[in-house]
């Protein structure tokens, strides 16, 4: 199985986008980490370094965007949050198309420890009107969706992950992805597993394990958290009748929260949320931490068994 980090997909997208002279990269001393340095190497003249100053970065980007540029601003997911109010009042409220990328999202980030592991970014950005919120699962989907962002007219937040994970889409499959539309990776009638980010490959593994015990799961890569693909969720409520969500994020307010909101309002169905259960992370190896925090493949399988019981 090929492994690659979604943050590298972001860097690769910026390079592909660089043929558009309006695309401009804005950095806060983490270009090596978010991979915006790939763009910097080609176009130093269209890369703006603002030092370690995320709040300033957000409004500089907004100024550029209202002057005809397409700014892609990045730092760690957690440090975009330092500038949350700047994003809220300076970008989302006036609906300015600044594209923010937060890398190193989730506890899978690993040994850096809890200060670097954002487990709330999806929740907080999802609460802002006008924002698109993305959390792609692999290199190719991140590249593809980032490229699509350049032609949207909305502010956006995209979370990428630090560590290498299985490549799920080949280039052809990735080219069929659409912002705002969940991607169905496997079909089954017993349960729907809705996942995002590094948990998608675990959801696929769980579905394989489940099929061996006679449970057929639909697996969805919900790369777009906002706007949520409610049509798909309603259809799955009809078809499968129960759900599991899986995300490397707090179970409060992120993908699990979004799916829960949709279900209770439109088509009540049992839901089990796999994610970080209301506590902060810690240092450790990324995969080891997911196990420790009950977010491994087996935990998804147990959650599926629980939700089916509740049908």
């Amino acid at each position: 199985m090929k492994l690659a980090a979604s943050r590298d997909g972001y860097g690769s997208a910026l390079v592909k986008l660089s043929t558009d002279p309006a695309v401009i990269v804005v950095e806060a001393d983490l270009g090596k980490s978010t991979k915006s340095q790939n763009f910097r190497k080609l176009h130093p003249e269209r890369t703006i370094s603002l030092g370690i100053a995320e709040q300033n970065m957000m409004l500089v980007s907004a100024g550029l965007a209202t002057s005809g540029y397409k700014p892609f601003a990045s730092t760690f997911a957690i440090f975009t949050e330092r500038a949350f109010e700047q994003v809220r009042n300076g970008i989302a409220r006036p609906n300015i198309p600044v594209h923010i990328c937060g890398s190193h999202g989730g506890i899978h980030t690993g040994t850096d420890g809890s200060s670097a592991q954002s487990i709330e970014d999806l929740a907080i950005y999802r609460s802002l009107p006008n924002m698109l919120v993305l959390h792609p699962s692999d290199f190719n989907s991140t590249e593809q969706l980032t490229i699509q962002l350049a032609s949207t007219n909305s502010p956006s937040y995209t979370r990428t992950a630090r560590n290498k994970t299985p490549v799920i889409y080949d280039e052809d499959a990735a080219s069929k992805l659409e912002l705002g539309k969940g991607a169905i990776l496997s079909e089954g009638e017993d349960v729907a597993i809705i996942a995002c980010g590094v948990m998608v490959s675990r959801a696929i593994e769980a579905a394989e394990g489940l099929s061996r015990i006679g449970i057929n799961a639909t697996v969805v890569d919900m790369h777009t958290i906002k706007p949520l693909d409610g049509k798909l969720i309603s259809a799955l409520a009809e078809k499968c009748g129960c759900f599991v969500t899986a995300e490397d994020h707090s179970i409060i307010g992120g993908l699990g929260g979004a799916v829960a909101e949709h279900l209770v309002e439109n088509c009540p169905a049992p839901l089990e949320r796999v994610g970080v259960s209301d506590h902060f992370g810690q240092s450790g190896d990324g995969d080891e931490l997911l196990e420790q925090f009950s977010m491994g493949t087996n935990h998804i399988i147990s959650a599926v068994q629980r939700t089916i019981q509740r049908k």
Partner: protein
Amino acid sequence: MQPRWGRTVMSTENGTENDFSSIDQLLECAKSCRRNIVKMVHRANAGHPGGSLSAIDILVALYKTRLNVDASNPEDPDRDRFIMSKGHASPAVYSILHEMGYLSSDDLTKYRVMGGVCQGHVDMTWTPGVDFSAGSLGMGLSFGLGTALAASLDGSSRTSFVMLGDGELQEGQVWEAAMAAVHHEVGNLKVFVDRNRIQNDDFCENQMRMFDVADKWAGFGWAVHECDGHDMNAILGAIEWLDSITDGPAVVIAHTIKGKGVSFMEDNPSFHGAAPNDEQLQIALEELK
């Protein structure tokens, strides 16, 4: 307050003669810390050696000669506070806390390992002797201002020392705190800036020029002193100078070399956040003998 370890240079009580045996002991201690820093980062295959090696001489001088702290009573409310604002330099903090008796050798081997007390970034909820949970740059000076104001409210003579990175000075919050500290005339807040001229991606010069850093602090109304952050005599003198300022906040701009003590890490932005490989570790330990 009495120095806790040996004598400081230019001590008014002990005369002005340097006690070279004490200086030698401090340098030996710093060397031992340096060895532990490179070993920890190597074992974890992650972490931040550069800014740990640039800061360690100052930490050794502070902990060994100045800070009123006690490993057998780490929660003493009247202890001095040391706030490592650039929390990625955690190996430096763990190495000196080991020398001071807070952490065992075994604790150090679990740096960044799941369940170990030595987290990737300094964390007061995990590690005895750590006063501040850092990792997000630009927050420590505000926290130090809070602990300093609390000491004044308590009528306590305890002091808050804060260490900032130079790249970290680009965070606006640092200057919000700097302005407030002067407004509140906190004489018990003392800062070291680790001026190693390098940040994450590159030299500060290329990321965000800061021009005359001392001048900026002076412009905010701070008492400012500059020293060589690897000359133990100069550091002890700087600590003494900090203690002589009692009517407001004071800052020492310590001119340092990122990666100091390991030739291939010195002044090399690549070793901000990268571990040495096996071969490099051997070279480093040889140089730190």
